């Protein structure tokens, strides 16, 4: 009798296993992001899970300022991690350290090459390390010079095309009673701080490094050197107000007390959001002042970890996830663009009517396209994020007059050279 009961229970258990075979095959991917618009991230993940039965995705988020160090410690601590948000400035170091894997190692043959053909040049540069594509764009944007149209029109000031004209316009506005016409995102702990400086230097047509990765910016004739002098001068003339985050810059610009700022382009969408901002509609982007009007373009991407790539089942699932998020028909990239105003690296979306219509509400789409077409990628190496962390406080010192531009540029160039040698010797 006992034996029969036992057999019956065993049969029930094995029957249940047959009825629910998926549970034994379920695979949970660990997806790590920074905490921008988590509700949209979670919703995208839900859609992926619905389209891919048997694959679950667990999302972990870290604050943007702490993202890279949290992620590095997570990977060094062997915490399971399959797909991560990657930044263009971090990618080479992660690749060199063996944290991440080229997408070709997880994707079907030819899939990455086919998608790469649709990616904008600077964005493709940003997701490539050592000749291999490591990520597909989550979003891709430029840094923009943004101004308040109404303030300039009321004051009879033409949109500045050079940094000298920006100074003249700001001085005119200050003389008219505007205390600090320029508001500047000044947070030396964020990579944005260095990116914004590079974008301005690019506007002057500057190159910060030569082809052999030797620093050029310590030369007083270099555009980056001149731009730092310009910022220091603008601070000394009390034309600039610092603010440590784009969110407070949006609020401050909407007080009408500032005419100019330099921020990620998607901030323009928030500035012109009629639902939340009192001065919505008054803000526009102008080409980055300078001789060439170039700016910095960059891409944040979906990257697969080396640990995931080493396990065939996880590698296959990870590729499905990356392809869903950033591959054709670019539905997720389009969603970010339409709903949040995020830029994209996938060129076909520039011709998508829904995107054009949505972006037309907050920006001149032609101006955006022109800016994207002349945007340049930054210079990123295995040690550039380490160097950037060293250099940013120096930049900040020079801006507020706490150190000379010459000393800061020399110090920055010396540290770059030290790190270059140090890395070459390891």
């Amino acid at each position: 009798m006992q034996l029969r009961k036992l057999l019956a229970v065993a049969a029930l258990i094995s029957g249940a296993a047959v009825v629910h075979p998926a549970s034994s095959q379920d695979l949970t991917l660990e997806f790590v992001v920074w905490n921008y618009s988590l509700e949209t991230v979670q919703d995208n993940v839900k859609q992926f899970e619905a389209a891919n039965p048997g694959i679950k995705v667990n999302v972990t988020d870290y604050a943007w300022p702490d993202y890279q160090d949290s992620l590095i410690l997570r990977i060094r601590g062997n915490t399971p991690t399959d797909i991560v948000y990657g930044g263009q400035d971090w990618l080479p170091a992660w690749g060199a350290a063996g944290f991440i894997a080229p997408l070709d190692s997880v994707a079907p043959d030819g899939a990455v090459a086919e998608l790469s053909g649709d990616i904008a040049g600077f964005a493709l540069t940003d997701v490539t390390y050592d000749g291999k594509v490591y990520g597909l764009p989550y979003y891709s944007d430029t840094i923009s010079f943004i101004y308040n149209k109404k303030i300039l029109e009321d004051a009879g000031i033409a949109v500045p095309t050079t940094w000298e004209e920006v100074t003249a316009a700001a001085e005119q506005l200050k003389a008219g009673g505007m205390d600090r016409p320029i508001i500047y995102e000044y947070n030396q702990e964020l990579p944005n701080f260095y990116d914004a400086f590079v974008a301005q230097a690019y506007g002057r047509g500057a190159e910060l490094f030569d082809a052999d990765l030797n620093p050029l910016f310590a030369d007083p004739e270099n555009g980056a050197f001149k731009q730092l002098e310009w910022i220091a001068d603008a601070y000394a003339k009390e034309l600039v107000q610092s603010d440590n985050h784009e969110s407070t810059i949006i609020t401050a610009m909407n007080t009408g007390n500032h005419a100019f700022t330099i921020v990620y382009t998607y901030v323009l969408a928030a500035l012109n959001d009629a639902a939340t901002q009192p001065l919505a509609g008054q803000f526009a982007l102008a080409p980055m002042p300078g001789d060439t009007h170039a700016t910095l373009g960059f891409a944040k991407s979906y990257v697969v970890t080396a640990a995931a790539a080493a396990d065939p089942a996880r590698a296959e699932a990870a590729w499905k996830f990356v392809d869903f998020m950033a591959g054709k028909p670019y539905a997720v990239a389009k969603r970010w663009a339409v709903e949040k105003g995020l830029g994209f690296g996938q060129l076909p979306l520039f011709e998508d009517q829904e995107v054009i219509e949505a972006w037309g509400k907050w920006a001149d789409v032609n101006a955006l396209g022109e800016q994207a077409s002349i945007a340049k990628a930054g210079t990123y190496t295995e040690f550039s994020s380490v160097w950037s962390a060293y250099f940013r406080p120096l930049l900040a010192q020079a801006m507020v007059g706490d150190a000379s531009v010459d000393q800061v540029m020399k110090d920055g160039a010396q540290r770059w050279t030290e790190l270059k040698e140090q890395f070459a010797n390891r």
Partner: protein
Amino acid sequence: MWTINRFPAIWLIPALLPVVLMTLYPVGYALWTSLHEVMILFPGEPFVGLENYRRVVASNYFQDALRNSLVFTALAAPSVVVIGTLIALFLQHGFFGSQVVRSVVLLPWVLPGAISAVLWVWVFHPSFGMLNGVLRSLGLIDAPIHWLTNPDTALTVVAIAHVWTQIPFAVVLMMAALSTINSETLEAASIDCPNPFKRFRYVIVPEIKSMIVVLLVYNALTAFTSYDLVYAMTGGGPGTATTLLSFQIWRESFSMYDFGAGSAVAFIVVVISAVLIVAITRALPSDLFASE
């Protein structure tokens, strides 16, 4: 015959084990790290001797951070003790609503550092900060003052925020110390000496001297190793104007990924902290650290 009672040291193992695991091992590992080139993004961890110490001490960042930490500590620690003592003396007297006031005084204690930082950033914000608004409405300023991004004012502003967060603990300890003073002594003193300042100096201070030393040592260490407020309010800036040594440990380790240099700064902080404690206890002798 072997019994456990003949080896009493064995009984210490349960207490010593956590100390070894939680304190000595991490400290030992940090010392090892400070003697190696441990750059988390680079392969290998070669032994470099005292090179990390030489490099961090020679860097401008370290020198600025050391100077800022000493100034910050000198501003904050005595301020907390003085203000905490004054508030405790005030709260000793019962008055209408004193219970409510006591609760309010303790409020900063329950707020996490990051929340306190956000509050103070909004107080000092140049565009919509409360302080500039008040100063403007009083006609004291025409243009907003950029408190947090001016290298001349940023450290003082962060020190003010830090003092605000530390006062409640000082008040609680000082009220406890004041409550131990014999009420008859205070009554006699009020008859013999009508001057309240002299009463405080010659009757109360001797009774609470040990607590003053405790608070000074505690607050010197808290200020010297302060991190969260600085990180959230200024990120160590502008430039290095508010970079403290504790922040520099973080920056070397987690921003520049040089754990060797970060550990070297940490060890230097430990040594300086020990010197601070000895200096304070020698400058203000009390019974607190007496051997008998």
